[in-house]
């Protein structure tokens, strides 16, 4: 990405340096000026660009950005190339002036072509840009022309304001965990900030307000419903502890849903108050880039408002993916719908093996519902597979039916109603078997897609991973366009967690406006999966540690444990599990922490801090345990996986 951000200040393209190039007649010559340079051919409307002075070596990327910033139509070309000639002819016929940089005339051709490739993933020349947006090669350009897109782009007004005249210092698209954190932080430094947030309703019509996924349809309602399921188990266990239940205990979905939604509502209102208090402007509108510094915001009534800002942060998050099979959007629900479902989902098929799928299946089963999970291949891809399988086994032992290596092929409605009855047809992954089942509800949890396709990123030239929609950024969360940043779930290759987005957002605001230089540390971030048997982890999975250090260089210490609270009600005695992975070449530093058991999140948090301090096995052993708690098992680990020793526990 290059160092276009220094010391926390946003640096705009230094156009004065480009101008000085022009003045010294070693640079761009625009159409309309009839300066003719000696050893180059000239054409009537487009003139070639060249450098004579090589003492001024500049980064290829900066050179490209410089030309793009200065010229509405920019062609990177080769003099001998027929296709380049055709492109130039096209613009001439449209009576549009353009600037051409003939790369075969330049000594820094390699650097420029490399920069072009990084920016556009196109190696071929000519490479055509209009209003900083990459059109493509000759074929793409002529196609854009045929489809009228080229003219539309040329007609687009470019807002050429100086930084003093922007409406806002910072515009944040997306009012979720990351966006709000960044906005509030920026406002504390006296910046003028606006947040745009808009929730496109689900196919079922579900929608919500400010706060993003976590508050409305993620972590918060999930944990509350997980707690509801845990309490159900507790009621059951309580009898062994002497409690006498007079009536039969049953669960009322409506009451739980109402309580959860009430809490979410108060959190949302708290966010609105906090934003208003910190003088951040909030608009409930859908934001799209229409120019390098301009956004069009459309509200629910279709009214359009335009905003300009010096700097932008994209924090639009993700939404659940559908399968792309008949009946999926019409009849299935996703996590977006589950937490506000007005009636109990009843007998439910959960499709997917992500943590969303397993957490939802887990608490639904805990509430007493008949739950099946359809899994294409492995559970919890990306997580330690040993732990993932233990989680699955536990769920299976407790009544969840797993349908392995099947993929749904169609969903049909058998009966209307709330929830009604659906028929699911599925095929095995080897194609040999067919499965049919009837359920009240089908919950799809097969992944989430980044919301980056329809916010005008191509208009401003922000590069995204075309396949996944995710945005690649540098260590400072900066996209390929210097004044546009991105944080949160939209980022490529980063953990999709609320605290990560919040941290990244806050630090980014500090770097931009408070002269800080701290970057977000994405390593050793602790997480917890809230399946019925909770899983807390920090650092590397066993697979990743083997890959990184080699099997001979790591030592895995592990043990089962039996929580004291589970003894009296005779709950599973050899299911809870603790594992640490140590790097032998560095004093057995703990590089992976894994715990399966109740309150896994609470346990893991402290150990994550210890890992940040470089905790070793010896330090862990020297720490005296607290008794009787689950976490103390980590202070007495002695059996290694390598030894094959028995780790079965009889309780304390």
């Amino acid at each position, binding site marked *: 990405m290059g160092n276009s951000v220094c010391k926390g200040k946003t640096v705009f393209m230094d156009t004065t340096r480009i101008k000085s190039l022009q003045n010294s007649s070693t640079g761009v010559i625009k159409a309309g000026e009839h300066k003719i340079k000696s050893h180059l051919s000239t054409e009537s409307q487009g003139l070639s660009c060249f450098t004579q002075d090589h003492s001024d070596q500049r980064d290829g990327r900066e050179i490209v950005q410089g030309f793009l910033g200065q010229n509405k139509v920019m062609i990177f070309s080769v003099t001998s190339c027929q296709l380049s000639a055709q492109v130039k002819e096209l613009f001439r016929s449209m009576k549009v002036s353009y600037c051409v940089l003939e790369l075969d005339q330049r000594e820094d051709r390699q650097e420029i072509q490399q920069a072009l490739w990084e920016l556009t993933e196109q190696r071929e020349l000519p490479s055509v840009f209009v209003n900083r947006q990459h059109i493509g090669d000759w074929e793409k350009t002529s196609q854009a022309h045929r489809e009228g897109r080229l003219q539309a782009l040329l007609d687009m007004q470019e807002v050429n304001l100086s930084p003093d005249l922007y409406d806002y210092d910072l515009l944040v698209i997306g009012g979720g965990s990351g966006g709000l954190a960044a906005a509030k932080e920026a406002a504390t430094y006296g910046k003028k900030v606006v947040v745009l947030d808009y929730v496109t309703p689900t196919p079922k019509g579900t929608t919500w307000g400010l706060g993003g996924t976590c508050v409305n349809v993620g972590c918060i309602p999930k944990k509350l419903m997980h707690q509801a399921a845990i309490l159900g188990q507790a009621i059951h266990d309580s009898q062994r502890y002497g409690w006498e239940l007079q009536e039969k205990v049953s669960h009322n979905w409506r009451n739980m849903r109402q309580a959860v939604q*009430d*809490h979410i*509502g*108060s959190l*949302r*209102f708290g966010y*609105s*108050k906090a934003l*208003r208090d910190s003088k951040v402007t909030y608009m409930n509108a859908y934001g799209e880039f229409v120019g390098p510094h301009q956004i069009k915001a459309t509200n629910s009534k279709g009214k359009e408002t335009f905003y300009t800002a010096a700097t932008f942060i994209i924090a639009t998050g993700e939404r659940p993916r559908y399968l792309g099979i008949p009946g999926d959007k019409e009849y299935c629900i996703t996590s977006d719908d589950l937490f506000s479902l007005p009636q109990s989902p009843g007998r439910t098929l959960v499709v997917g093996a992500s943590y969303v799928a397993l957490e939802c299946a887990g608490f639904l089963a805990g509430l007493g519902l008949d739950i099946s999970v359809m899994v294409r291949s492995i559970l919890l891809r990306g997580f330690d597979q040993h732990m993932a399988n233990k989680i699955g086994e536990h769920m299976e032992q407790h009544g969840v039916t797993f349908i392995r290596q099947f993929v749904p092929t169609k969903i049909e409605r058998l009966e209307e109603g709330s929830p009604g009855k659906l028929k699911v047809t599925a095929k095995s992954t080897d194609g040999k078997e067919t499965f049919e089942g009837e359920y009240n509800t089908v919950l799809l949890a097969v992944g989430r897609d980044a919301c980056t396709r329809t916010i005008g990123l191509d208009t401003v030239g922000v590069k995204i991973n075309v396949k996944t929609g995710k945005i690649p950024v540098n260590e400072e969360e900066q996209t390929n366009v210097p004044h546009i940043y991105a944080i949160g779930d939209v980022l490529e290759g980063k953990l999709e967690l609320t605290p990560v987005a919040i941290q990244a957002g806050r630090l980014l605001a500090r770097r931009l406006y408070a002269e800080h230089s701290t970057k977000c540390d994405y390593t050793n971030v602790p997480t917890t999966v809230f399946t019925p048997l909770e899983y807390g982890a920090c650092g590397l999975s066993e697979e990743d540690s083997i890959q990184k250090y080699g099997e001979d260089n790591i030592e895995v210490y592990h043990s089962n444990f039996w929580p004291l609270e589970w003894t009296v009600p005779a709950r599973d005695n050899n299911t809870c599990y603790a594992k640490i992975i140590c790097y032998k070449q560095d004093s057995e530093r703990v590089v992976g922490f894994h715990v399966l058991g109740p309150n896994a999140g609470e346990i893991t948090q402290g150990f994550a801090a210890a890992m940040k301090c470089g905790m070793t096995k010896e330090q862990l052993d020297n720490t005296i345990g607290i008794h009787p708690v689950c976490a103390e098992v980590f202070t007495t680990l002695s059996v290694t996986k390598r030894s094959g020793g028995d780790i079965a526990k009889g309780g304390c």
Partner: protein
Amino acid sequence: MARQYEEVTVRGYDEFMKAVSQRKGKDVFAYFSGSKNEQGFSWCPDCVKAEPIVRGELGYLPPGSVFIYCQVGERSYWKDPNNEFKKTLKLSGVPTLLRYGTPQKLVEEECFKKDLVRMMFTED
């Protein structure tokens, strides 16, 4: 001046609940204040400070909504942690401005901020 909202004045919990039940289906905003004496002064200094600010924003109330001005009672009644307002309506302090049936609530110093009051009256 034609008002777009209905203003209702009540004293005490029972009167408040009666006023609310008579206006089912309407958007009801309620301002709870320590009761005023014969001279028109409330024992609650924050309520005195907040009232003109809240009243100043009443023009932003949505049309057809209801604004209930409720005097909760004497200081001694209010201080009892088991009074009906605290127990049933879950009020934690006065003044409180809330939108009945929703989690939207401004408590004590929050009522001094006219931006927040306006936000509550105008947001969906």
